[in-house]
């Protein structure tokens, strides 16, 4: 079955990807004050990455919405959020904590946009970890590359349907 036909049968993955991308644009323009360029769909990022994920539970599906970046790009976003210049040192733990807060805001905005359509029931707490969500049966994974200022990040939507 073609990807286009699958999308026609189940438009939710496309809608979630659009909502998450728009959410990052909103977060970047307000909390980060950085410009956003959406590059488009890509494969899973390679190399060591930091990932911040937030769980969203809807009546019919379970999602993890994530933002993934290498060390330099995640630090760029965190410095923008905290308004800390390159010349100043970040405290230990600042990067994962603030990166998680960025994911929390992206997840919250996306959830609000999607709840109008599908009635979202819950938003979890952010989880920050190294690496990606592993691909396995039953999970649909989508990635979108985005430039946020000088940072290159990948948005992740991992979706599994509830039975």
């Amino acid at each position: 079955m073609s990807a286009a036909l699958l999308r026609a049968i189940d438009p939710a993955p496309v809608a979630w990807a659009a909502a998450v991308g728009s959410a990052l644009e909103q977060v970047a323009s307000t909390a980060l004050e950085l410009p956003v360029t959406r590059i488009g769909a890509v494969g899973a990022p390679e190399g060591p990455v930091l990932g911040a994920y937030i769980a969203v539970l809807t009546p019919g599906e379970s999602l993890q919405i994530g933002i993934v970046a290498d060390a330099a790009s995640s630090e760029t976003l965190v410095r923008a959020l905290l308004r800390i210049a390159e010349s100043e040192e970040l405290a230990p733990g600042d990067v994962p904590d603030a990166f998680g807060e960025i994911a929390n805001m992206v997840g919250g905005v996306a959830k609000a946009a999607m709840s109008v359509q599908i009635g979202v029931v819950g938003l979890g707490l952010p989880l920050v970890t190294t690496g990606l969500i592993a691909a396995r049966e039953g999970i649909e994974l989508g990635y979108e590359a985005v430039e946020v200022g000088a940072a290159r990040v990948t948005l992740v939507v991992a979706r599994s349907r509830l039975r």
Partner: protein
Amino acid sequence: MRDMRALVIDDSKAMRMILGRLLKTVGFEVSEACHGRDALEKLGDGPPVDLALVDWNMPEMNGLDFVKAVRGSGNHAAMKLMMVTTESELARVQAAIEAGADEYVMKPFTPEVLKDKLVQMGFGA
């Protein structure tokens, strides 16, 4: 006249830093708590607080339960409560206001939006 005091309640250190810095520019003396239960303990031990900024989703005790606990206790009746959260659905806003929150700001926000809300609540110029 004593300084204005604010309590920032958020499980994210980053968000506590952002909100605390902003409140200091308006003239607040700021303390922090990392969840609702921590905030209740700090309110019990410390000096009177004029304003609490409250996140919704936190471990231990969430922001809505904190608001209910404070308003239900009869203590700190003069303290203003502002929810600052990613929870933006109308039903959530209504639940917070019904529980006793005075204001509601949705994340992400700009410093100007938060300062405007503070002015509307009678804080700052």
